[in-house]
């Protein structure tokens, strides 16, 4: 059972549909009571960092999430802004992050991006695993994923990086620390590749 955290930010239904096709049960959590006994957590996110953080803070689910993730070590994956929220802070806003992984969210440096189009980083890009991780099991070398963001996740501890992508610089597009996972791209909108990754997460 995969629990989708619905705090009014991000596309819950798209995840639900992927798992329906995979025959994996899901549950939507809108309040803290829905999170009790969760086995796997997905923290989606779109939009601006502060808006997403303030929505999560206001949802009443923040405390139990800290408890589940930090104390009970329930596997959790943050997606796009959901990943960024797991860090300490963001160039995009003023609010503090969840601080589950030691990372800062920085804006891409436009000067380093060589083509005419600068930001956002929008479209399909390569994701190259740098270590063996069950999240990428069965994903061939040519796996590409859909990105839509202007800020990136800068790990303060490089050993947390599990995959990298290039956009002006090489940045961490997937991270893992203990039971905590984060991916910058959108697996729910990345066809067979994303489906495989979400399957892998459900089977962790």
């Amino acid at each position: 059972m995969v629990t989708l955290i619905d705090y009014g930010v991000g596309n819950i239904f798209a995840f639900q549909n992927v798992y329906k096709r995979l025959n994996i049960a899901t549950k939507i959590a809108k309040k803290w009571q829905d999170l009790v006994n969760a086995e796997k957590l997905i923290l989606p996110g779109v939009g601006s960092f502060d808006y997403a953080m303030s929505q999560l803070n206001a949802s009443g689910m923040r405390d139990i999430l800290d408890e589940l993730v930090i104390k009970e070590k329930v596997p959790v994956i943050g997606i796009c802004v959901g990943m960024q929220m797991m860090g300490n802070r963001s160039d995009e806003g003023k609010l503090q992050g969840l601080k589950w992984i030691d990372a800062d969210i920085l804006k891409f440096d436009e000067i380093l991006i060589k083509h005419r189009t600068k930001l956002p980083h929008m479209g399909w890009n390569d994701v190259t695993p740098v270590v063996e991780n069950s999240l990428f099991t069965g994903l061939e070398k040519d796996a590409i994923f859909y990105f839509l963001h202007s800020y990136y996740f800068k790990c303060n501890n490089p050993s947390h990086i599990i995959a990298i992508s290039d956009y002006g610089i090489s940045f961490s597009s997937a991270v893992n620390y203990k039971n905590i996972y984060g991916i910058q791209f959108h697996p729910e909108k990345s066809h067979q590749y994303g489906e495989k990754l979400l399957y892998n997460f459900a089977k962790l």
Partner: protein
Amino acid sequence: MLRPRIIPSLLLHHKGLVKTINFKFPKYVGDPINAVRIFNEKEVDELAFFDIDATVQNIEPDYVLIEKLANQSRMPLCYGGGVKSVEQAHRIFGLGIEKIALSSALIQNPKLITQIANRVGSQSVIVVLDVKKKLLGGYEIYTHNGKKATGINPFKFSKELEQLGAGEIIVNSIDQDGVMKGYDFNLIDKISEKISIPMTVLGGAGSIADIEKVINRYGVIGVSAGSLFVFKGPYKAVLINYPTQTEKNKFLKINNSENTE
């Protein structure tokens, strides 16, 4: 490497899909939900839907239909048509749309871009400019399915929209729409000089070669087409089609096989 995006652009009219020529003569081409299913199978980069009724009839976006499209889609979706407020935009994002396209509402109130971007982030706010050549040279923005001239110069306006927080600009050529004779490079050149946010061009593709020409010239860009992906053959039989990953890699010159020289 970031790929250029190849994007089918689909028009919603009376709950069905249509394709126009120069924004006129809508021809029914099928059911939108079914089209999403087929494009899923074809692993399309992105899909764009434009409701061509909402603004001209001054009605709300069809939230029920949008939700169905979003739920079916395994690729990023852009929706445009009749969006005039932050509340509407927020509601549509909640249905699972990645990008919202604004057009006529911005002519009245360009700051709407900033308001929506503050809520959802710039990356998800798209502007569609329907552009037509002027009789004596130059270009002008039109709204209401090409019926209303605005007197606004698309090049200056693009720059302004970028500064106001637009995440992408879709440039749609009314003159090239449905004609299938290639994109208007003069128009694309002039817009691309003005902005550094992503740009998608629409209007005129008659073959994959037309798309290749755009990519060869501009590199990382969105290339969108309507007729090309819904019609086949000289008599325009309705048949949804899209290049395969292998075909795309070939003309993007991406070689994933390590063994090949």
